[in-house]
């Protein structure tokens, strides 16, 4: 019998949409049950949101003061305890899940399947290696717990029409005090969230400066898009780190991705492979980005973006 435990990701009392994507992957394994575990100091509202996700059997709410911040060292012993009786433990492949799930896996004495793209069967998965330049099929021994992170860009968010029961769960786990939260500097933005947005406009080194990036924001706002960036743009200080798209940044799958002044290095392309339509705007007609773009336009971005804005009207 297979039962999947999905670890909910949340921040500031709200469930992260990546959780519903992990539930989609769980459903693909056709288990007998999918339960969500919410670890928080105040899990009620988050658990109520999680209970609405389609396909969820029940939600386990673990309330502890120590769970006020998502510290892997504190959460992992609880998840490992809660995992008893489950055949699978899934977490989204976000920085939250990447930090936590391997710690859980090690406590359970198993390796982890990272970045699940497809579920071939309850114990068989496809995942990318070498920045997505090869896709491997991995089989996990049927006898051992499957701990996996789910590559969110590969999965749609499960819909929210459900009404699963919420149960309070108290876990007898000793928690360490050796790791402490200090603060979180969050980028404040009214724009759509990069990871869930239908449209994304990204700028690269070609944009040239922090000030020049305004032209990207302006255009993105015009079409209601989230804003991303290449590593070069982040490294140069044009934009903060949470905007980086690529192998070591965010992996995204918007319907429309517009790359502006980005050359198309393999590590960047890894982050956008699953985008619906990729548009490239670059002054160098030989730039590798044009090899994968669905629509390409060669020219100076400082001329083209204003033209686009007026052409859209």
């Amino acid at each position: 019998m297979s039962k999947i435990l999905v670890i909910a990701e949340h921040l500031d009392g709200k469930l992260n949409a990546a959780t519903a994507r992990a539930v989609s992957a769980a459903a693909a394994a056709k288990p007998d049950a999918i339960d969500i575990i919410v670890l928080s100091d105040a899990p009620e509202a988050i658990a109520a949101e999680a209970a609405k996700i389609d396909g969820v059997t029940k939600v386990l709410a673990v309330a502890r003061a120590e769970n006020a911040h998502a510290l892997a060292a504190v959460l992992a012993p609880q998840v490992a305890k809660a995992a008893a009786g489950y055949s699978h433990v899934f977490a989204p492949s976000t920085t939250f899940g990447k930090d936590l799930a391997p710690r859980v896996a090690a406590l359970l004495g198993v390796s982890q399947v990272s970045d699940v793209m497809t579920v071939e069967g309850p114990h068989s998965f496809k995942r990318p290696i070498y920045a997505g330049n090869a896709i491997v099929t991995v089989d996990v021994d049927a006898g051992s717990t499957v701990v996996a992170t789910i590559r969110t860009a590969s999965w749609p968010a499960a819909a929210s029409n459900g009404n699963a029961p919420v149960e309070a769960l108290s876990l007898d786990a000793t928690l360490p005090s050796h790791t402490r939260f200090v603060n979180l500097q969050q980028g404040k933005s009214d724009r759509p969230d990069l990871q869930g947005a239908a449209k994304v406009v990204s700028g690269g080194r070609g944009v040239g400066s922090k000030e020049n990036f305004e032209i990207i924001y302006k255009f993105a706002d015009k079409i209601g898009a989230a804003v991303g960036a290449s590593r070069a743009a982040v490294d140069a200080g044009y934009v903060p780190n949470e905007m980086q798209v690529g192998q070591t940044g965010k992996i995204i799958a918007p319907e429309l991705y517009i790359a502006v002044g980005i050359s198309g290095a393999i590590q960047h392309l890894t982050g956008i492979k699953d985008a619906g339509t990729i548009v490239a705007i670059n002054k160098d007609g030989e730039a590798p980005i044009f090899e994968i773009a669905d629509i390409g336009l060669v020219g100076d971005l400082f001329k083209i973006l204003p033209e686009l804005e007026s052409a859209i009207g």
Partner: protein
Amino acid sequence: MKIIVGYKRVVDYNVRIQVKPDGSGVVTDGVKLSANPFDDIALEEALRLREKGVAEEVIVVGIGPADLTAHLRNGLAMGANRAIHVQTADAVSPLTAARTFLKLVEKEQPGLVILGKQAIDDDANQTGQMLAALWDRPQATFASKVEIAEGKATVTREVDAGLETIEADLPAVITTDLRLNEPRFIKLPDIMKAKSKPIDVVELGSLGVDAADHIKTTHYAAPAKRSKGVMVNDAAGLVAALKQKGLL
């Protein structure tokens, strides 16, 4: 304090990876190999901590086949005091790598272990977290800033929401993100000096590590190719194309 640094050899990030036609692996024969970029960053951070007087000794560790020596010499040339080569002919899983590091940690008693957040071949992003779990010590993953004082590490982490700062009592495991530092280049005289630095070779089998692997890679495939796109001539053409696809 001692610092242990993971120093993995991987296919260079500039190499275009080719999957073997029979799906049995990727082509690695004759392909350029380099240090995992995140591990160069890990080593650089350790060296800076030694230069600041926070650490006395930096040990680079490689787990891999017999021909790893030249790679470890690069780590020594960059500035590590010594190297440990855990020799194994087989590919090891992240869990086995973590268990191996734990054995070395028990022997060397480091104040800090710095690993890359991921190796750019398998992209597993697991080893550091697993080591921290098995060792029952703090983990500070995806670090972009590290400060060590009074027996604790204050680490800024690159997370999806922005920058998170946490405090961890030492000993602890740190995994590096790209913006932590810019690794130094190896200078010629250092390559000469590195020749006399010690490399301990231990057989993985002799460490008593459980190397059982319950995850098997059964097939390798090239990723689905995106079909060739079209070029438009101007902004108006782009807007028309996007409208036609219903994207504007």
